[in-house]
């Protein structure tokens, strides 16, 4: 299967492990990712706060390039912010004639054009779960991650792409949980799995960001996770690089490695850790990875849980006895 690929600025350097592991797992899964030539930054969460029309024009240049380069109609973005911005631009261009007219005029100034709907923007998790599928992923598992306890972390922008349909539940997403289970790892309860990592607040209001990061680390630690698996470069950076700052601020002692889900997939596929970008994380994952055993853990008899189908995400209470 051939896909257009929009890495985004983070994957070029800071989140290189995400890019490398994505490329490494693409081969066994028979995926061909063709990078959009000369793509530009999506503006993250910054440009839309400053200037609306330029923000949409900036994003739309990428959509126009992707549509023009004959790399297929599906465009895959591994970064949550890139995914949301690309998807949002396509969506709003289609439903807002005034915006489309202005963006068209701006693109024309660069000799480009874009027809909304001609590119289908997907997050990498969506591509892997829906297009490749759990079965095909499971078939590639050569070294199951037995005994490794993983907290699946979705963050905000993938489960909640605003007014647009999400491929997973906005409050209780499960796709990453299921994927990690297929790798042989143990998925721990992680009630805050779709909560915010603080985004750019680490730069603007550290107090706000550190508190949100602390919540997430505590929740993963309380549920005895060996590591947190993320699908977003911003989440990885905040939880990994600011873990020391959280410990210093709150007198805690967290050492929870934060890895990309694609790195875990690669490991389970038998790809050497070095090719997957392990070692680039600031909180080392070495000790956690040494817990992986050759033998499957004994299945734990699950206690009955209170069924909740809707409402606010609350910790699930385990019934007595």
């Amino acid at each position, binding site marked *: 299967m051939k896909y257009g690929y929009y890495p985004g600025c983070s994957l070029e350097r800071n989140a290189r492990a995400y890019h490398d592991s994505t490329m490494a797992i693409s081969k066994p899964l028979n995926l061909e990712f063709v990078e959009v030539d000369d793509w530009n930054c999506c503006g993250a969460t910054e440009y839309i706060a400053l200037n609306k029309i330029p923000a949409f024009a*900036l994003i739309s240049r990428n959509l126009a390039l992707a549509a023009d380069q004959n790399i297929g109609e599906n465009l895959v973005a591994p970064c949550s912010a890139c995914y949301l911005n690309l998807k949002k631009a396509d969506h709003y261009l289609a439903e807002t004639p005034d915006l489309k007219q202005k963006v068209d005029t701006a693109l024309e100034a660069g000799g480009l054009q874009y027809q909304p709907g001609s590119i289908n923007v997907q997050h990498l998790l969506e591509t892997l779960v829906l297009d490749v599928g759990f079965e095909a992923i499971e078939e590639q598992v050569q070294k199951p991650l037995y005994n490794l306890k993983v907290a699946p972390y979705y963050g905000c922008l993938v489960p909640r792409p*605003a007014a647009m349909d999400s491929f997973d539940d906005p409050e209780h997403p499960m796709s990453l949980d299921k994927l990690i289970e297929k790798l042989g790892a143990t998925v721990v309860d992680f009630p805050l799995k779709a909560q915010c990592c603080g985004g750019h607040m680490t730069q603007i*209001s550290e107090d706000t960001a550190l508190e949100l990061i602390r919540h997430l680390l505590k929740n993963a630690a309380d549920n005895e996770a060996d590591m947190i698996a993320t699908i977003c470069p911003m989440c990885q950076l905040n939880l990994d*690089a600011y873990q020391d700052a959280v410990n210093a601020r709150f007198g805690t002692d967290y050492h929870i490695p934060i890895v990309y889900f694609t790195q875990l997939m690669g490991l389970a596929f038998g790809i050497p850790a070095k090719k997957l970008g392990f070692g*680039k994380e600031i909180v080392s994952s070495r000790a956690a990875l040494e817990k992986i055993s050759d033998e499957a853990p004994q299945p734990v008899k699950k206690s009955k849980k209170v069924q909740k189908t809707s409402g606010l995400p609350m910790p699930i209470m385990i019934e007595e006895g």
Partner: protein
Amino acid sequence: MTDSLTSRPPTFYDEVVAETLGLAENLKTCLQCGTCSGSCPSGPDMDYSPRTIFAMIDAGMKDEVLRSNTSWYCVSCYYCTVRCPQEIPITDLMYSLKRMSIQAGHYQEADLDKAPEFSETFMNFVENNGRSFELGIATRYHLRYHPLGAIKLATGMGLKLFTKGRMDITPTKIKNISQLKSILNKAKELGGAA
């Protein structure tokens, strides 16, 4: 624009709705239920909760709304948006308030006036290179706005990221930067540069 449809001049409420994409007109159906405020991870840091801000917009309290730090504390998590029973695009409304507060020149009065400076520093690199450049953004932003932060960054986390090979020391430029600049310049003419 709504003023052609009514005999009265556009109110602040009309301006906010007109600036916002999507179903912004749903704002008129706000129940004041407070689901947005209760869902907001940074709500406790805000001058006014999102629910209060919507009541203030309705009451035409333009100056107070655009001077408040509320929209600048929005972390863009979209919980309010997906939970709002009236399907009001709240996160997008917060972005509109950010833009309007910059245009009105009020943001410097909010106690989070570093937020737009960060966005501007970030975008300055993107406009000139086509790509973001973390080291440059962080250095320029911190040096200009809080030098102590720059020292902390250079000796602490920045150094760690650098030694892990996770930080570029020079910006990357896209090939056709002149095309991008033409597009953005035209867009600014059409959109009214902030």
